[in-house]
């Protein structure tokens, strides 16, 4: 899938402005939204089940906790090599939890997050998708 990023302001914008052409965006935007009309037959056109994205993971399960724990333990906090994280942490402690982190750590942060802004473009496309076995069903005629 091509996700094309355009910056209206030219130059290196921080706001990501992908064109809504990617399938993931389309699914997210339109699936299960819009008006439903009783008089109309709902046709299961697309094998919607193929497209259902399990995007919302409730933050409450043991699985989720273990994933968080794993992500936290994976952090390379005390190691060097390319990432300069220790410096970043020093700076972070200074700025504290402030949401409006100033540009003070910008340079260091570029080293950390740097390329990820570009490379992660496709992340959304790779979220787990659920497949239902009922895709052979061709039409759902639900009349109201």
């Amino acid at each position, binding site marked *: 899938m091509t996700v094309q990023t355009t910056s209206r302001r030219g130059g290196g914008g921080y706001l990501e402005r992908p064109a809504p052409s990617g399938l993931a965006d389309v699914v997210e935007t339109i699936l299960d939204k819009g*008006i439903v009309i009783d008089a109309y037959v709902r046709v299961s056109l697309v094998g919607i089940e193929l497209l259902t994205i399990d995007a919302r993971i409730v933050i409450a399960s043991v699985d989720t906790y273990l994933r968080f724990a794993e992500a936290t333990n994976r952090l390379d906090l005390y190691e060097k090599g390319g990432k300069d994280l220790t410096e970043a942490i020093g700076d972070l402690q200074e700025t504290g939890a402030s949401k409006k982190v100033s540009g003070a750590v910008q340079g260091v942060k570029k080293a950390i997050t740097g390329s990820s802004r570009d490379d992660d473009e496709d992340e959304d496309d790779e979220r787990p998708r659920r497949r239902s076995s009922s895709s052979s069903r061709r039409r759902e005629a639900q009349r109201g």
Partner: protein
Amino acid sequence: MAEAAVLPDVGFYFYGVVPAGTDVAGLHGLDEVEVQAVEHGGLAAVVSTLTLERPPGRSAELVAHARVVDALAEVTEIVPAQFGSALEHDLAEVAAFLDDEGEQFRRVLARLHGKVQLNLRATYQADQVLTEMVQQDPVVSELRDRTRHLPAGEPHPELVRLGEAVSRALRRSQADDAEWLLEALLPHVSAHVVRPDGEYDVLDAALLVERPVVGVLEERLEELAEVVHERMRLRLVGPVAPYDFVGAQTWG
């Protein structure tokens, strides 16, 4: 009805309702079939013919639906139909439907006039935010020290506690950050819908915005994105049709 008798297998795929007089020429929908506007009482239902007996579909159909609806949303206001709505028989039913629901369609179209939807998602830079937690939350930090050298793949109880602590801290900052973002944006927004969050989502929201304000909102978001870029990615998609602002109730 006559049409149904002649072509029992053909129906009309339904994209949505627009004001009468909207130009749909050149728009192609599902199966690349040309789109038509069925006008009645100042409104137009946008449809295209469709073979009802179909093999399990493809994502192309979803994309085609979005393409038609979003193209119309660029030039006029539209009440989009839910994906997969089709009329089985003939166009007389469309007129009847526009009659019955005309009042409501006109009301919604009037409310949407001159506005577009933009979808905003703010997502944490996970490693950055987790690093902050380890630095700032003594519980997280201690549990991390005690669990990080455990053999991989074993769900140790302290790992669960660590995850819980992280989850709690994450929810707290999500709530704060989402509120902060929304407050900064709401002056530029006519209406908004916040959707449930994913794991590292800060905010996932549909914004209804006056067309002339879209540029202002983008600039504001760019400023905000720069301020928070170490911790969050801000992603804005659209304009798209106002899918989130036409109500969830069943019509007709």
